[in-house]
């Protein structure tokens, strides 16, 4: 790598870091909002995570999360924040693709595209 390329990589990495930081802040704000609602809904309830119950009233699909948000259910809003955190990792790989394209590093562009493909495949298994 030439010095100009190194400089470019460093600048882009800094920018990616900033995007990740603000993404984290947005997710945290959503989870805090949902958390406050969740606590008011479950005030006085005893925590019970000792037994794994799959039928528990807990959103497990995207449509359940969306429905829950519409009825401002605290748990669903927390789940939305968590899912956004996962999506942020996809963004991280997508930003890497952008970086390698700008640097004309085609091998690493291909590698990043492959990883994004694996992540997307994981959604349908």
């Amino acid at each position, binding site marked *: *790598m030439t010095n100009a390329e190194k400089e470019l*990589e*460093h600048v882009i*990495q*800094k920018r*990616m*870091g*900033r995007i*990740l*930081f603000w*993404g*984290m802040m947005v997710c*945290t704000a959503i*989870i*805090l909002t*949902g*958390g406050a609602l*969740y*606590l008011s809904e*479950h005030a006085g309830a005893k*925590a019970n*995570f*000792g037994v*794994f119950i*799959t039928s*528990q009233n*807990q*959103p*497990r*699909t995207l449509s359940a999360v969306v429905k829950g948000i519409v009825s401002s259910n*605290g*748990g*669903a809003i*927390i*789940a939305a*924040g*968590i*899912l956004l*955190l*996962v999506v*942020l*990792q*996809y963004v*991280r*790989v997508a930003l*890497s693709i952008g*970086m390698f394209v700008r640097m004309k*590093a085609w*091998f*690493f562009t291909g*590698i*990043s595209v*492959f*990883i994004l493909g*694996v*992540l997307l*495949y*994981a*959604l349908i*298994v």
Partner: protein
Amino acid sequence: MLFLLLVFLISLAAGLLGVLTGLGGGVVLIPALMLLLGVNIHYAMGASLIAVIVTSSAAAPTFMSQGLSNLRIGLFLETAAAAGAVAGAILLSVVPSQFIGVLLGVVLLYSAYLSSRQKDDVTSERPSDPIAVRLGMEGEYPTADGIKVYRVYHVLAGTGLLGIAGVLSGLLGIGSGAVKVLAMDRIMRLPYKISTTTSNFIIGITAAASAGVYFTRGYIDPGLTMPVVLGVLAGATFGARVLLRAPSRILRLVFVIVIAVLGLQLIAKSIGIY
């Protein structure tokens, strides 16, 4: 409320430990939630997987602005880790949870062993692996005597190990930071700080690969995950800022003992003698 506060405090400690040791936090979080608070292993794994994503995302901006994470090496290795994570998450439906408990205990003991060893960076005069040279993987890092170039060895062996790390990550809900650091630090011979920060960059992506499966199986409970996310975020953010001053030997020794005790307890509990 008290329960959630305790979850928050445990997660804070796990996030701090995760960043300082490069282990990712999840490997400590799962046994702590199970053994101290009686949380079921599946919920603990779900919360931990999200904690791994948080640790990785919270510390990444700090490391990236310092140019410490080597993205080329990280993403090259992540191809194997992401594929392994998907395989691990699929395996979840056939593996009994006692086995998962014992496996996690073994990973903990191994992490303790790894953390107890001295982390001297050995500089070698041998040229890098030709693959690493061809792909421009070598980099620079700041040391006490100024900026130094580091070499990269055994790229393919390291990548193979990352595949195993990926399977463990999907199967256990952890970041497998210990195995990732082992691959980069011991096999590829990267400087320790480059290994931990590069590992930190990719653990979030690996965890995202199995997050979908965990979510649809109901492992990720919002009520439990909420205080975990907030605690780990606080711990990891703080941890990333103090990483440049590496933890003292006494602190490291405390980490090792805590991790080893948790590992032994978890194995005992999983095979039913505790």
